């Protein structure tokens, strides 16, 4: 009986520790993996913090037409090469060109598309 309670306590502790998310991503980091891994590339990490220092939200979300919902923007490398979406800046002029594959395709394989870094509410968020 005593051993049982001890095991239960240990399990409870393990569950609590497990419930704390591991140090994961910077707040608002987006991982894009709709096509990357299927095409043999690492998924893309899009860090909002990095871009926000250089551009206001309105540049990408109004001028370039990125929808404000992860997974809402369906584009391919061919779009980028033709100057749409990321390609409006990632053209070797404003930012590095798309031939620098590994700088964007830098994510961990096996992770699904989503917004990472925790929204901290633990509510029924749909991110």
């Amino acid at each position, binding site marked *: 009986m*005593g051993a049982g309670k001890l095991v239960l306590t240990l399990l409870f502790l393990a569950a609590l520790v497990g419930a*704390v998310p591991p140090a994961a991503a910077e*707040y608002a*980091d987006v991982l894009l993996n709709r096509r990357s891994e299927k095409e043999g590339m690492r998924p893309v*990490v899009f860090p909002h913090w990095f871009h926000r220092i250089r551009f206001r939200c309105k540049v990408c979300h109004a001028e370039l037409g990125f929808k404000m919902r992860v997974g809402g923007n369906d584009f391919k490398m061919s779009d980028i090469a033709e100057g749409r979406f990321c390609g409006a800046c990632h053209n070797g002029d*404003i930012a590095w060109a798309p031939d620098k594959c590994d700088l964007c395709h830098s994510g961990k394989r096996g992770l699904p598309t989503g917004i990472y870094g925790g*929204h901290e509410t633990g*509510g029924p968020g749909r991110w």
Partner: protein
Amino acid sequence: MRVSIFQGKTIRLGLAAALVAVVSLSVLAQQGWDTLRKDGIHDPRGPGVKELQEPAEALSKLTKDNTGNQVRWVQALEKGEINPRASIRPDTKIQVYDSDVLLNLKGGMPIVRFPHRQHTLWLDCTNCHDHLFKAETGANKLSMLSILNGEQCGVCHGAVSFPLTECFRCHSVSRPGQAPKPTLPIAIPHGAVPPR
């Protein structure tokens, strides 16, 4: 009997230790920035992490927050710590609209003051109007449930802009008779009528 007291104590001690561990872990998680190698979404063996800018290098210089990216983004912008471009096309019309809207006039929480200015420094009118909010005061039925579910204000707050744990950054205007800075948790007994 002795054994059961010992077990009870063990469990209570264990619980206390676990709580302390959880709290200190969450506090630790809020101090400093993870390196890209250790952040859990970058491939630590990939070539990208060797070249990309580390969050700490860029963010440690900006006005500090205790949540999100640990940066007060609006303040960083207003103080000139960052100077992000507002457009990349020469013909884009950049608008900043300076008008506050008071929301949640009948609720129990402090009134929400929505400042257009800070929002339009970053965003374009079309980012919210009219697909998220009608451009008419009182025409939008807002609910915290929707917001917590990633709709309305929750499209950004809780995902990319300051998180929903910061209740009083939005609920910032006290009602008559309300303490100027309420502290959580606010204990309102069931059936009690909130002050108006």
